[in-house]
């Protein structure tokens, strides 16, 4: 089984945490903050991603993690 994290796995993680109403409506290359994800939900998303994929996301890396695509690349690099 591949260890590669896919967009589907990231969206499933966000969906399971009840953090976004419709994850399938999220544009992958648009900042989440422009798609109705506020700062608290963004913290919640990062927390769930850290937990599910076993990665640690330091505060200093957050500025570069504004879109689903950037999160995807980051997590696969960290794993």
């Amino acid at each position, binding site marked *: 089984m591949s260890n590669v994290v896919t967009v589907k796995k990231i969206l499933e993680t966000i969906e399971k*945490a*009840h953090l976004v109403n419709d994850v399938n409506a999220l544009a992958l290359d648009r900042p989440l903050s422009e798609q109705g994800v*506020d700062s*608290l*939900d963004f*913290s*919640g998303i*990062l*927390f769930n991603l*850290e*937990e599910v994929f076993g990665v640690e996301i330091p*505060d200093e890396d957050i500025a570069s993690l504004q879109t689903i695509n950037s999160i995807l690349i980051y997590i696969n690099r960290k794993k």
Partner: protein
Amino acid sequence: MIALTHIGTYLPERKISNLDLLNKFEVDESFIRNKIGVVYRTRKEVHEKASDLCIKSFENLQEQTPLNLEDVECCIVVTQNPDMNIPHTSAIVHGALGLPESCACFDISLGCSGYVYSLSVVTAFMQANGMSKGLLFTADPYSDIIDENDKNTALIFGDGATVSLLESDQPGLVALGFDFGSKGASYKSLISDGRLFMNGRAVFNFTASTVPISIRKLLEKLNLTKEQIDAWYLHQGSKYIVDTISTRLGLDRDKVVFDMYEYGNTVSSSIPLLLSSDLYKIQKGQKIGISGFGVGLSWASAILEKV
């Protein structure tokens, strides 16, 4: 057996509206109501100290259940914003209320986990020393240390105080068990050297990961299921954190009490404030869960039963 029988409360009438700060902090009303969960923050008068708030909560207690001061055998204050460094605030409260010289006084320095910790400490202290009546105060006036320009903290905290009357052999809430813990290595995530600093993400991660485990562990230790608990009184850190814990534990939302819209996060007073509204409605045999978490980083959970 020592039971929690009555709770006196005090919330200042003066309030600051978070709705006046939407532009300043670039947030909308939905964020204030549905995420922060604080519309108004109570504010003591600038000159008032923790002991003043304690005394006002005691006046409320006296209205509920007239108490003979001579019968009070211990007086404990939970605060991290004491009137002054020396002496302990409980001594000031003791003097102001005119409690008897035989009454033991000490402070407990804890933040949002303070009430749950202190219930264990004070009931054990009373039992060990054969005491019948004790007063457990909470008062942590954060308005003295808040930076009103700091978005991470300015929208959250309100001032308030409570006093719990603990009595032996009286109907009330009795603790069935506790779970405690600390992550002292992360203490800098919530700290004050005169002005409060909070790393919101670190505190959120701590709470979301630790509190559900604490509650599960406690239920398991007591051989109880979450379905056997009639209501949950979680520390009102924010609506978002209460919702997060509830979701992660799979709690029935109708059983999770939430009420901080009108006053904010009152630190160690939040759980007794919530509980005060329901205390007399809890029926014999019903069980409730309480959990406090925050400064330290520290947590404490307990299951109480009405006897």
